[in-house]
């Protein structure tokens, strides 16, 4: 093979899709890129930008309903689009491999991991079964999976998410392909898990000398993994260049915004008296307690952020406050009076005073109702509004959350992610609450959109004096909004206090682990972490309590 030919070359690629209603969507328009051997290209963009579609074309594949309108995709000089199915089968797995976002569903639940990892090599007769197993075990070790000799004997459900993601990488690498497409490989993981996975992947890519297409919505992460970056938006290429070039001297306004995102900082506010106090709260399902003997205070007109990884119990706390999950023990005091643990026994006033905004607006909005009904329902219930008055109130609320009043006629399906979340906020506001429980309200949103929502929340607090119980795993959001922070782990608070205090050294070690694990948007951050690990030659972030 001519070493001068680029490994992957895409020219003038247009991909369209036929939608169920018969119309045509343009998924990718006029994309061109070149990728040399051993090089990693980061593909960045918000949801719907076409990153994954582009990634799949490197394997000569499209999702159902999509097709190539124009352009060519060459791998090692061979055109994949005209080569026919046999050619595609030949290159897939052997020359290009794929690492999916959700390894948990990308592994076949019926087979042991090792059999799936070596499947390409064995089925394609690239290696003997014994060789393939050796290779897999070597990769398991390289990817720092526990007991690499026996790890492969597990079934997918017996491994953790981070392990599966690494096993998936091993599966991609096993047959020594030239190129691996990583499709948001760590998006579903917690930050502390994510850092382990990207460390392992990064080292493995380096050692194996493979080229990569690294797809992510997280610019900071891509900056660590890639040599070059391509920014996509609405299926078009925004800009492309080396990592350094893109993050230090972005050529377009959009990229600049992306870089600037997550830069919001919340000004320090004067202290206020408590609105909600939780004292010794214990809650859980059945005999299992998720949170135990936990005390927190939300001040009036201020934001308390609760930070922690999945499973730490922060969302459970949100449900306890709303009364959806009655606390088994402990007391809730709201505005100086005791609050019934069970929502069914709370007076309507209490229900009105405490509202909730959920993480995923798709689940939180009834897809069969129009925005008008969604926002109108609490207006009717809590404000007793109907008819024209309710109509006017809906319009006012929409304006308050920076949406056009015309959207009242739409159903959630016809709204963008950010718009949906704003409708959720408007629905909460409609009750004129004193406290809103915000449960991961930005985590399903693209960074720029999330920023907008955070700004909106800040503005609304300033205008309405509403308090937020702000559940998140994102320190950027904490810094943007929170007056106070509580860091949770395994159902308990490990650190709490004013934001400035908790997020500044000296940290609690777990807080530090969390903060350190968040990729930073600077060149060489990951290398520094690797270096730091090597010197300590042990687990990067041991859970060491101060003694």
């Amino acid at each position: 093979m001519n070493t001068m030919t680029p490994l992957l070359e895409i020219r003038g690629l247009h991909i369209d899709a036929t939608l169920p209603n018969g119309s045509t969507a343009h998924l990718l328009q006029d994309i061109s890129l070149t990728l040399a051997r051993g090089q990693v290209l980061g593909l960045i963009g918000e949801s719907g930008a076409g990153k994954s579609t582009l990634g799949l074309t490197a394997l000569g594949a499209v999702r159902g309903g999509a097709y190539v309108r124009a352009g060519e995709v060459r791998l090692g000089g061979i055109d994949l689009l005209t080569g026919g199915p046999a050619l595609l089968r030949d290159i897939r797995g052997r020359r290009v491999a794929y690492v999916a976002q959700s390894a948990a569903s990308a592994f076949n639940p019926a087979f042991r991991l090792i059999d799936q990892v070596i499947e390409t090599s064995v089925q394609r007769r690239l290696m003997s079964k014994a060789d393939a197993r050796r290779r897999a075990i070597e990769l398991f070790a390289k990817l720092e999976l526990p007991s690499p000799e026996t790890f492969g004997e597990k079934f997918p459900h017996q491994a953790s998410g981070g392990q599966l993601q690494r096993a998936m990488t091993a599966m991609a690498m096993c047959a020594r392909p030239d190129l691996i497409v990583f499709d948001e490989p760590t998006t579903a993981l917690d930050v502390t898990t994510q850092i382990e996975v990207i460390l392992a992947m990064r080292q493995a890519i380096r050692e194996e000398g493979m080229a990569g297409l690294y797809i992510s919505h997280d610019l900071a992460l891509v900056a660590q993994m890639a040599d070059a970056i391509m920014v996509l938006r609405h299926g078009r290429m925004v800009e492309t260049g080396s990592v350094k070039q893109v993050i230090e001297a972005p050529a377009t306004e959009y990229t600049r915004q992306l870089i600037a995102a997550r830069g919001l900082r919340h000004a320090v506010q004067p202290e206020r008296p408590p609105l909600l106090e939780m004292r010794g709260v214990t809650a859980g399902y059945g005999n299992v307690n998720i949170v135990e003997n936990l005390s927190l205070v939300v001040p009036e007109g201020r934001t308390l952020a609760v930070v922690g990884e999945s499973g730490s119990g922060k969302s459970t706390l949100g449900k306890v406050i709303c009364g959806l999950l009655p606390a088994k023990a402990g007391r809730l005091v709201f505005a100086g009076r005791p609050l019934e643990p069970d929502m069914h026994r709370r007076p309507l006033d209490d229900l009105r005073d405490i509202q909730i905004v959920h993480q995923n607006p798709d689940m939180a909005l009834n897809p069969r109702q129009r925005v008008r009904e969604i926002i109108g329902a609490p207006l009717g219930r809590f404000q007793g509004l109907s008819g024209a008055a309710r109509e006017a109130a809906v319009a006012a609320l929409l304006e308050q959350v920076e949406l056009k009043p015309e959207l009242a006629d739409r159903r959630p399906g016809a709204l963008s992610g950010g718009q949906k979340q704003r409708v959720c906020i408007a629905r909460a506001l409609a009750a004129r609450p004193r406290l809103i429980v915000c449960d991961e309200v930005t985590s399903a949103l693209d960074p720029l959109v999330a920023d907008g929502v955070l700004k909106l929340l800040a503005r609304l607090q300033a205008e309405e004096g509403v308090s937020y119980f702000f559940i998140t795993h994102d320190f950027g959001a904490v810094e943007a909004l929170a007056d106070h922070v509580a860091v949770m782990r395994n159902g308990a608070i490990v650190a709490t206090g004013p934001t400035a205090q908790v997020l500044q050294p000296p940290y609690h070690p777990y807080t530090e682990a969390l903060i350190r694990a968040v990729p930073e948007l600077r060149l060489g951050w990951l290398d520094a972490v690797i270096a730091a690990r090597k010197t300590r030659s042990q687990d990067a972030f041991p859970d060491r309590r101060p003694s």
Partner: protein
Amino acid sequence: MSLSDATARPAAPSRLAGLPVALAALFCLACLVCVIGADWIAPYGEADLVAMPWQAPDLAHPLGTDQLGRDMLSRIIFGARTSIGLSLAIVTLAFAVGGALGLAAVTLGGWADAVISRIVDLFMALPPLVLALLALSVSGTSLVTLTLTAAFIASLRVFRLTRSLGIDIAARDFVDVARLRRDSTARIMWREILPNAAIPLISEFGLRFVFAFLFVASLSFLGLGVQPPMADWGGMVRENVGALNYGRLTPLVPAGFIALLAISVNLIGDWLVARRGGGR
């Protein structure tokens, strides 16, 4: 994730793609017209003996005559009224009862759910035909008891489906929001849960309709179904099936109508689901 090879533009969808659905709709419409207007449309009476048995089709009797010399076309038209009307009644009742109980079980949860579910489990543990055989032998055979029995049996499955769909929907956050607003159980069932279960339920409605048809026919066979001289398509197959032994094809007529109806209902159901993005 459904993947396909990246290739050039796929073949354009045929202009005739919608034709089967249109024909199916037309057929169903015609059937509905018969359901409503059988008395005016049918050239002869339902039970009138007008000619010799098993006559070949001619101008006076376009579909021939049946085993007693009744006009087949008229019987088909009246049969549409009985069969379709009966199946519709059965399925509607089954959905009203099974659906309401299913939604109630989901919305109320707790012991109400447990009690209803266990009772349904018990009846589902009994074979439907045995259940019907006993129920109809106990209660006697009339259109009312037939409808109630078949509806009861169908409602068990409708309950299960509604409940499983409902549990999925009730776990969504917007239902919590409605609860936190203290919306009534009925309102939550009706406004929040039901609309989201509608498409799969409609598709199930079509399927249950076809099964109800079959079920009534099976009961006719056991002498417990629609009672003659009333015409029903399943019963007409049964009545005329003897003609097969003499090489006459009369029983194929009602059988063909049953098949056509089943296909039509199915096509329309699929089309409805597909039009709504196929999402469950």
